[in-house]
């Protein structure tokens, strides 16, 4: 194994106007193992929505890094998160993606646990001639070190030594507030490339007109024809991505702990399904929050959650499998109680753009794989993809963030062609912070 020093991986010299990332971060399997341990298994990660286990005894299963977990609601309604492995032989206890169960019985030797995670039975325990040390052991399912909820979003950490969830999410909570009260529905895809490709792409305004021209042409055509049977896109109604748009069209914000937002101005219009509730939203939240709710917003909660409100409303959960392989689960998130018409509109917009079977996402994932090939070790290791906007980035917020009392650590106000990349720096600084103890 080649050993890396941090300074060889992230070249961060603001005084010289340099921020560069080494290709090795996308390719190296030894670095990947460290990332799993220190980023995905070493801090807060998103595990699911409370609505995925809504009723007493409901549960769903997932992973934190490489560790299988179960999120379970007990009979009293309390949610907990356990390692999904029987303490006896380590067998994964629950295989189903979701369900409802008062008891989980291990398929291998029938050890039994209730919905609070407590061991209720060890088969033939009395006859087992166990030594006293065994009886002193705790036989319950192992709870994860930290588990918390922010307005329905569930997070967990296998490492106890982390800030509180509130402190970790920080100012980004105000952006999550703009998407709460939603219920999910999901699909899954895998692509042969590093997880950070997805992390970056969601925040990458620069790629849109280059990667998606085939989709943009169809939007143009649909907008001209106004045929009822095709989906009218919300993006088609906005101009933040069009090269000749004038003035401030959006920008980026970076928050502590690696969370970032890429956003674009969109009008409060019927191109979004929220429009049916515009009066209620205005009354309840005020004009400024309502306007922000209609803006294009791609929010990343480092390291594995992305909430994209653009062509529809999507939640993505990133699960790295290997340095060159990532699984992504994607969900449409929608407000409860929206009309049948608004829901239909939202889902059609989602399928049209986002699905791995849609008309835009496939062009992204293919580019990730092509990028992964170009990440092979070479004499010029530094990527040049984190440099746009370095001289536009300022400390703190701007008039747009001020309108909703949002206080980012850094921000960029952009015209349509700026397409800031400096926000990616926030990912890599958070990455460096987690890795600094293991990489000199």
């Amino acid at each position, binding site marked *: 194994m080649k050993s890396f020093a941090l300074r060889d991986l992230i070249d961060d010299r603001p005084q010289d106007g340099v921020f560069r990332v080494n290709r090795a971060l996308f390719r190296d399997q030894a670095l990947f193992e460290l990332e799993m341990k220190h980023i995905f298994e070493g801090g807060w990660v998103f595990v699911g929505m409370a609505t995925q286990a809504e009723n007493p005894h409901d549960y769903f299963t997932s992973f934190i890094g490489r560790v299988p977990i179960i999120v379970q609601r007990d009979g009293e309604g309390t949610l907990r998160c356990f390692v999904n492995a029987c303490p006896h032989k380590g067998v994964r206890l629950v295989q*189903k*993606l*979701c*369900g409802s169960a008062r008891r989980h019985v291990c398929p291998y030797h029938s050890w039994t646990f209730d919905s609070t995670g407590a061991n209720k039975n060890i088969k033939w325990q009395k006859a087992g001639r166990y030594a006293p040390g065994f009886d002193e052991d705790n036989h319950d399912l192992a709870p994860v070190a930290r588990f918390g909820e922010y307005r329905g979003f569930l997070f967990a950490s296998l490492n106890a030594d982390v800030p509180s969830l509130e402190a970790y999410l920080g100012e980004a909570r105000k952006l999550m507030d703009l998407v709460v009260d939603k219920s999910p*529905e*999901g*699909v*899954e*895809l*895998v*692509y*042969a490339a590093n997880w950070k490709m997805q992390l970056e792409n969601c925040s990458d305004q620069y790629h849109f007109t280059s*990667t998606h*021209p*085939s*989709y943009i*042409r*169809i939007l143009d*055509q*649909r907008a001209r024809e106004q*045929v009822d*049977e*095709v*989906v009218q896109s919300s993006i088609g109604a906005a101009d933040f991505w069009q090269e000749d748009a004038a003035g401030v069209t959006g920008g980026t914000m970076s928050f502590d702990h690696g969370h970032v937002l890429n956003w674009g101005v969109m009008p409060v219009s019927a191109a979004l399904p929220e429009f049916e509730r515009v009066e209620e939203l205005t009354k309840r939240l005020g004009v400024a929050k309502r306007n922000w709710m209609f803006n294009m917003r791609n929010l990343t909660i480092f390291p594995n959650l992305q909430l994209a409100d653009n062509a529809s409303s999507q939640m993505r959960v990133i699960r790295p499998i290997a340095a060159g392989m990532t*699984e992504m689960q994607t*969900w*449409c998130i929608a407000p409860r109680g929206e009309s*049948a018409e608004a*829901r*239909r509109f939202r*889902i*059609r917009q*989602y*399928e049209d753009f986002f*699905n*791995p*079977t*849609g*008309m835009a*996402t*496939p*062009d992204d*994932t*293919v*580019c990730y*794989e*092509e990028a992964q090939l170009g990440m092979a070790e070479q004499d010029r290791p530094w990527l040049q993809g984190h440099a746009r906007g370095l001289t536009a980035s300022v400390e703190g917020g701007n008039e747009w963030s001020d309108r909703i009392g949002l206080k980012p650590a850094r921000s960029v106000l952009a015209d349509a062609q700026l397409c800031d990349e400096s926000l990616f720096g926030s990912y890599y600084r958070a990455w460096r912070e987690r890795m600094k103890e293991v990489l000199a």
Partner: protein
Amino acid sequence: MSSMTAAEAASFLSREALYLDRFDFDSWLALYTPDCRFWMPAWRDDGTQTEDPDRELSLIFYRGRRNLEDRVQRIRSGFSVASAVMPRVAHMIGNVLVEPAGEGRVRVDSSFISNVHDVRTNRSHSYFGRYEHELVLDGAEWKIASKIIRLMNDVVPTMLDVYGV
């Protein structure tokens, strides 16, 4: 001929598959009625699929051939990197069963395997599942009024387009 034999139905489905394998999209589109439904539901959990496409997510849901025409336009546009190097595709269809579904209308159940070789990455993959076709007589010709694709292996490697299933 207001109904169809199993052999005729199998022949019809084989023709659709051949058009897709050859990327003969004009002939493929011509098999569909203008107001057709084209639906590939998603999996809700281990064993059940989404049932109401207006409330729940589908992998693909279209009402109206025009939407399929948009898909074809994107594939042919020359501006989609996912369609720049077209995979090679060979469909196999079997277990064809026909049921009458009213005057001039039949329901056809079948199983499919779609073998896809991605030339770009030199990887092969099979998609498999069941089709549920509703065919209607349009003059002397049968047309597809509805096609449901129940895709069994729904963890999609990178991408999946209409010719792949």
